[in-house]
């Protein structure tokens, strides 16, 4: 054993514990950083020269301590499960947002929703039946018919607007996804070179994991560890990112129907997306169109019920009634001829111009459109309630997963403080060791040789 070898042991201890202190500092600094995984220094005793050579003298003691890498504490299986649950959570939340939007257009029960307007319109026919000769009752029927038709059209265009907004938002999300996949592949590249150079890459990995969570939420992406520290991104069985190359995605809307799909830019094939994007596609292609169809059915029922009686009856002058409601490019409207002249409202079941109101009475007894409307409101209500309950359940699952992730990867300040103390003591001990060695040498050099 050389007389100065001990200094080296002390030095390795000082260096190792200084670096451990740095890692503890890093952990404490990131105690509140989203997506940060706590890091641990792996210390390893240095065993000394492995192959004895001519000048290498090995006396059996080790030669200090060495840092054998800094690891992120992270459970890969838990991460994979987290991605899945986050994706489902994002999907349910987006579904709930969309159905909530539809629900707000069916604002019931209220005094001014479509239900009230339908009732008021039908009621105005009852007043007309009681006084078919009065212009005021006729004008009221026309007024309320016009208001009702406008309200139905308005509700439809509101739904259409929501559909457009959802499509825009999806396009926006997909362009962000394209940015993220590019970043993802760039990070793959940097991590590979860092690994090759032996540089630390833990923070880069944390960044990449954070992107992975976002991609899982938006697209329901799956992640597979590839070669040389790279992580590949899959949509179902389709490759989105492989090592350093990323595919681009694009939202395509079918002309006419406006139905959307997410496709690969390179070859135009459909991507099998999940997460929020899947919910958006379902909302745009199925949910909103379904309620538009239901609204159209209500309008048709209303027009059929009123028109059937109206065209078989006679107006104030005794002429056969015309259709009360007609359908234009924007949906149901009042017949402009009837709208312009309230005397064209057909209240009489008998030709020849008289004060019979039995046709109006017949219309005032119609309930079909109101029944259909009630059914639709219930369907919206049930769907919105179910969506909201699913979100609540999934929120609990996500909470558990987050707790489990925290339990593995999160920073506990108390724990770090304890480690800090232990490391501090170790550092002090190493320093003390060097000073003792110094004293020993002092004895040897200054006192012995006089």
């Amino acid at each position, binding site marked *: 054993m050389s007389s100065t070898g001990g200094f080296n042991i002390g030095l390795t201890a000082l260096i190792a514990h200084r670096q451990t202190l740095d890692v503890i500092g890093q952990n404490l600094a990131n105690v509140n950083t989203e997506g940060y995984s706590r890091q641990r220094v792996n210390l390893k005793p240095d065993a000394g020269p492995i192959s004895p050579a001519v000048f290498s003298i090995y006396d059996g003691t080790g030669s200090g301590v060495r840092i054998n890498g800094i690891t992120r504490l992270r459970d890969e299986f838990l991460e994979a499960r987290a991605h899945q649950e986050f994706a489902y959570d994002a999907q349910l939340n987006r579904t709930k947002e969309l159905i909530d939007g539809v629900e707000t257009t069916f604002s019931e029960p209220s005094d001014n929703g479509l239900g009230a307007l339908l009732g008021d319109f039908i009621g105005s026919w009852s007043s007309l039946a009681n*006084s078919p000769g009065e212009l005021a009752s006729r004008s009221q029927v026309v007024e309320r018919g016009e208001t009702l038709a406008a309200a139905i059209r308005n509700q439809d265009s509101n739904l259409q607007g929501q559909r457009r907004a959802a499509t825009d938002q999806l396009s926006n999300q997909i362009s962000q996804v394209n940015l993220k996949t590019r970043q993802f592949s760039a990070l793959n590249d940097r991590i590979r070179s860092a690994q090759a150079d032996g540089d630390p890459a833990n923070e880069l990995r944390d960044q990449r994991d954070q992107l992975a969570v976002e991609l899982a939420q938006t697209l329901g992406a799956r992640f597979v560890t590839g070669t040389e520290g790279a992580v590949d991104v899959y949509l179902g069985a389709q490759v989105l990112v492989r090592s350093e190359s990323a595919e681009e995605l694009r939202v395509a809307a079918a002309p006419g129907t406006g139905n959307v799909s997410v496709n690969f830019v390179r070859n135009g094939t459909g991507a099998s997306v999940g997460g929020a994007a899947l919910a958006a596609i379902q909302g745009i292609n199925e949910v909103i169109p379904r309620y538009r169809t239901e609204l159209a059915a209500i309008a048709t029922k209303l027009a059929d019920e009123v028109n059937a009686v109206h065209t078989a009856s006679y107006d104030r002058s005794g002429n056969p009634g015309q259709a009360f409601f007609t359908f234009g490019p924007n949906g149901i409207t009042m017949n402009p001829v009837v709208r312009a002249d309230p005397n064209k409202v057909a209240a009489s079941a008998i030709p020849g111009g008289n004060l019979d109101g039995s046709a109006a009475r017949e219309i005032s007894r119609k309930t079909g459109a109101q029944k259909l409307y009630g059914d639709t409101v219930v369907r919206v209500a049930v769907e919105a309630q179910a969506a909201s309950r699913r979100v609540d359940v999934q929120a609990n699952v996500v909470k558990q997963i*987050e707790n489990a992730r925290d339990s593995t990867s999160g920073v506990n300040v108390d724990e770090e*403080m304890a480690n800090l103390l232990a490391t501090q003591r170790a550092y002090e001990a190493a320093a003390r060791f060097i000073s003792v060695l110094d004293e020993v040498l002092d004895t040897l050099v200054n006192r012995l040789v006089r």
Partner: protein
Amino acid sequence: MTRVTERGANRVMLDNLQASLQKLSRLQEQVASGRQINKPSDSPDGTVNALRYRDDLRRIDQYKASAQDGLDWLNITDTTLQKGLEAVGRARTLVIQARNSTVDAGSREGMAKEIEALRDSLLALANTKVGDRSLFAGTADVAFAYSGAGAYQGTPPGTAGDRIDRQVGPDSALRINLTGPEAFGAPGADVFTALSTLATNLRSNPNGLGASLDAMAAANAQMRAALATVGARANQMNLVIDRNEAARLDITTGLADVEQIDISEATLNIKLQEVAFQAALSAAAKVSRNSLMDFLR
């Protein structure tokens, strides 16, 4: 062992506070709006019931308005027929007097004049209007049910449009009108012709007075029968109004049960939730204060 981290504890604490606050804000929304259901998904079946009740209420109000309108119409018909009967009664008295042999030609002329005046007032009664609608013209769009000459111009009974109905229930419509012939006799045999004939008889054909007395009796019977019909219909109408009133009360109660909140219960719930929220807050404050740092020197 599960490691607990500050961030995790913080999140759990925030989640709990959030959940508690959410319940509190929902209760507050209910109390502020006074309603249990603020959107359909709050309670799908509550919403259906609320929609149905509101619809029923609107219809009941229509029936009520129609029944009230019909009752007014029937009351006016009733008053008109009562007055008509007085006129016919007076005519009958006059005929009975005229048949007394002591009445001279001058008095007969006076009686004939009075009969003509009675006929005119009866004609005016038969032309009574409700709003701008002739009471006895059926659904015909005419200014007067009877012309000055006493010819009926309204819808003939038994033809289309002789009925005026009021919808007073989902499946019940009540007739509210009488056509002129139904109230005053068939054209040619009506009370106006009878009175004209009576005036002529008084002046020039005393032998016809016997037949005129019969005619007066017939007119009286006809109008009494009409009055009885009107009275029966008015009764029915009143029953319907009462029934609708009762139904309205039931529906209003049902609607309130479905839509509105019990304020005292809701206030109590808010108080309880407030206590829970405060407990969560104080627990949060205590837990997040403890740290090893406090005990290190």
